[in-house]
């Protein structure tokens, strides 16, 4: 059960401004994010994290299946405790680093473990360090005195401890012995392929953390001492690194181009080698100045890392690079890792036929283990385990629920159709979102469900009927025909066809079959579709006039650029808040492209952050073409045209436009010569006419 519960959907993090700096600033980012949160996740004892969380989560889960709990109380309670331990850690960690840290504790996946620990023990030293110097909080301030440490090379730590060596020694002696074992513990773990955290091990670690926390509390009393301690910690960190180096027996060496070529000749490197190299590359890129080899550039490391990612996870190089560029280095790795793990199975209650509580009860009786997804939706349930096929229960067939990914709730929630509206779903098969909208309309108004692919409309129709949606018209047009077929919609949902880079965990074939050309074609299609969607909306609609654009892709050219394009092409639309309480903000700047600043209102969702498919949601409001601008335009136009019709300027214009036969003569002559030639006549020599013209 513990294994399953790790798949539990993390509760959505609160919406807060999170700045994701470029990879260059990783070190600082760490400090910032830590100082943002009041509690210090890394220094807090692990046990505390576990304890504190269930309290926060208990009410909502209790509300839904309290009956089930009454039935077998002990069992479910135990389950819940475990299940909630995981989201707790997810929740605490606003940024990916802590995520990795806590994952490392829980995760038993042997293949991934070594990698995580690599980051893990790195971190432990690092966060510890920064937590302590957090008092002076602006560590990028040169006056703080800590900065100079970062400029030193790893080998030189003897020099740098010189100034405070006396104090330090005393500190170390007074410090509990456990602290140093913590570092070595973890590094042992990373060496050990199993990467298991045994019970005893955990205990030791938590005790060590406790001790550390206590020590820190002491240190916090005196600021000066605190600063000294930070130096101290830093040394610890360096010792860690040294330890690492000892364990690996040789320092990390980035292969040169020639070496890589040779490796390729031999048929690709060993998986273990690649794994280790990736780990090292991430570490180096995290603190480049300090850890990089001399005369190797950052791009060389990045290149090597991308190549390794491509081979290790099985992407083509193009896609690996494209996805890699979306995130800071360490986060990118998390993203790739998350694509290897399946997302939790979720279902949506069909409110036309059942209530969530009743449905949950009925399914629990059939031996399905489930829980509500989160606070952000009141129709979603997450399935942990089922003894019956979840897509063939009598409840499913009777249309009480729909198997639907959590991410596909989002665009409908954002669109929030109101009763008695006319809604269009431009690319609707297999109907999860369509039926969700019909349910929100409570079978009033009308939903036009369109899908280009006729074969897919069969399953769409089946789902529409099964879920008892009586207000749906299913049609099969190319979406781009749409304002012609019918316009005047109150709301339009465009879940555009996309490359599917957000759902790689569902469809692994995306990893290899997407090329540059696919992305160009798709984004072209998306741009056409979004304009059609905008044109299909009735701007005079009373409550509506909204469009939601969504894709299950994470790339920028399918999302932000498309939205930006729409904003530029249709001046009467603007972006509005999606109404989703979580998700990252859309990029307003990306690799030299600058988008409209309001694109910050769009939302991105990631597998490694939100534990749902990678997704993008943007919501537009279509306004009337403002009369003021129209009039202005008309005025400008008439100003421009009216004088033309009048006397004096008209002549002048005519003069300008008239033929200048003198200038044209050489062309005429040339044409004449060609004509003669083609008739087989001999044209007169060329020099003469040109000379006459000139």
């Amino acid at each position, binding site marked *: 059960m513990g294994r399953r519960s790790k798949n539990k959907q993390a509760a959505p993090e609160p919406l807060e401004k999170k700045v994701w700096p470029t990879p260059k600033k990783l070190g600082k980012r760490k400090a910032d994010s830590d100082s943002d949160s009041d509690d210090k996740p890394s220094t807090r004892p692990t046990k505390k994290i576990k304890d504190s969380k269930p309290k926060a989560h208990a009410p909502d889960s209790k509300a839904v299946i309290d009956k089930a709990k009454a039935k077998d109380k002990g069992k479910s309670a135990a389950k819940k405790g475990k299940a909630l331990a995981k989201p707790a850690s997810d929740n605490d960690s606003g940024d990916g680093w802590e995520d990795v840290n806590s994952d490392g504790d829980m995760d038993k996946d042997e293949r991934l473990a070594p990698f995580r620990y690599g980051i893990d023990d790195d971190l432990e030293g690092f966060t510890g360090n920064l937590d302590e110097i957090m008092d002076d909080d602006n560590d990028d301030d040169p006056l703080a005195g800590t900065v100079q440490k970062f400029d030193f090379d790893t080998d030189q730590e003897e020099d740098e401890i010189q100034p405070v060596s006396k104090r330090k020694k005393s500190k170390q002696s007074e410090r509990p012995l456990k602290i140093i074992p913590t570092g070595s513990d973890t590094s042992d773990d990373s060496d050990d392929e199993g990467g298991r955290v045994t019970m005893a091990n955990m205990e030791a670690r938590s005790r060590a953390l406790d001790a550390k926390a206590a020590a820190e509390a002491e240190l916090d009393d005196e600021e000066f001492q605190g600063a000294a301690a930070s130096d101290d910690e830093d040394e610890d960190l360096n010792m860690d690194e040294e330890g690492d180096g000892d364990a690996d027996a040789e320092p990390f060496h980035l292969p040169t181009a020639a070496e890589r070529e040779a490796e390729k000749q031999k048929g690709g490197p060993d998986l273990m080698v690649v794994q280790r190299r990736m780990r090292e590359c991430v570490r180096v890129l995290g603190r480049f100045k300090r850890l990089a080899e001399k005369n190797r550039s950052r791009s060389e490391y990045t290149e090597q890392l991308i190549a390794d990612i491509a081979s290790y996870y099985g992407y083509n190089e193009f896609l690996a690079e494209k996805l890699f560029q979306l995130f800071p280095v360490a986060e990118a790795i998390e993203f790739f890792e998350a694509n290897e793990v399946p997302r939790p199975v979720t279902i949506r209650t069909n409110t036309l036929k059942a209530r969530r509580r009743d449905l949950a009860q009925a399914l629990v009786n059939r031996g399905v283990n489930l829980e509500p997804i989160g606070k952000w939706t009141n129709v979603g349930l997450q399935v942990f385990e089922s003894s019956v096929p979840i897509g063939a229960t009598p409840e499913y067939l009777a249309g009480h629920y729909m198997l639907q990914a959590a991410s596909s709730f989002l665009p409908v929630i954002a669109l929030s159709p109101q009763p008695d509206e*006319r809604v269009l779903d431009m690319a609707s098969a297999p109907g999860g979102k369509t039926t969700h909208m019909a349910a929100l309309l409570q079978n009033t108004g009308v939903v036009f469900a369109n899908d280009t692919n006729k074969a897919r409309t069969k399953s769409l129709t089946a789902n*529409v009927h099964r879920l008892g949606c*009586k207000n749906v018209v299913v049609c099969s*047009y190319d979406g781009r025909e749409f304002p012609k077929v019918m316009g005047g919609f109150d709301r339009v949902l465009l879940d555009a066809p996309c490359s599917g880079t957000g759902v790689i965990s569902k469809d692994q074939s995306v990893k290899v079959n997407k090329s540059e050309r696919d992305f160009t074609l798709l984004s072209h299609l998306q741009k056409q579709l979004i304009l059609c969607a905008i044109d299909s909306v009735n701007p005079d609609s009373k409550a509506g006039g909204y469009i939601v654009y969504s894709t299950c892709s994470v790339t920028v050219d399918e999302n932000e650029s498309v939205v930006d394009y729409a904003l530029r092409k249709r001046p009467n639309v603007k972006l509005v808040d999606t109404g989703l309480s979580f998700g990252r903000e859309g990029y307003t700047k990306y690799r030299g492209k600058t988008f409209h600043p309001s694109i910050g209102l769009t939302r991105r969702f990631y597998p490694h952050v939100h534990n749902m498919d990678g997704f993008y949601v943007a919501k537009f409001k279509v306004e009337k073409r403002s009369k003021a601008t129209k009039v202005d335009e008309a005025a400008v136009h008439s100003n421009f045209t009216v004088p033309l019709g009048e006397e004096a300027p008209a002549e002048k214009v005519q003069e300008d436009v008239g033929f200048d036969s003198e200038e044209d003569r050489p062309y005429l002559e040339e044409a004449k010569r060609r004509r003669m030639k083609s008739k087989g006549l001999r044209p007169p020599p060329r020099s003469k006419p040109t000379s006459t013209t000139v």
Partner: protein
Amino acid sequence: MRPLTEDESKAVFTKLANYIGKNLIHLIDRQDEPYCFRLQKDRVYYVSESSMRLGISVARPNLVSLGTCFGKFSKSGKFKLHVTALDYLAQYAKYKVWIKPNGEMPFLYGNHVVKAHLGRITEDTPEHQGVVVFSMKDIPLGFGVTARSTVDTRKLDPTAIIVFHQADVGEYLRDEDTLF
């Protein structure tokens, strides 16, 4: 998409009347909104007039479905009810049959209802009467025709068939391709 002809309406209504009897009138005279029957590519749809009017603007080859599909006309002109009509049938059914939980899955796989699985049945159901099949939790599962009257069922052995299967919600999975 066009309205039904005289003959077609007759075929549809007699079939429906077999299940819902006089309640048929509630389908035609609705309190909330006028509804109508429309024929589109041999399928009969029951749809609100407002939806129908909007649906008119969709070209015939592109229109896949609108409202609720009730069934289809066979080539010989007979009308066959589909499971998609179940919502309305269940709402207005005159005669109902409830089956026990252990009989649910066999019925959903397309089998007839045997006496052993019979949980409840409407009193005085005649023979060869269209009935709607419910689970014990009142979830409509399909419909069929009784093999015996209620009185006669009492003396049957447990394996005897009570309701002949006509349609069940399992068809959404089994016959998704042919249903629409």
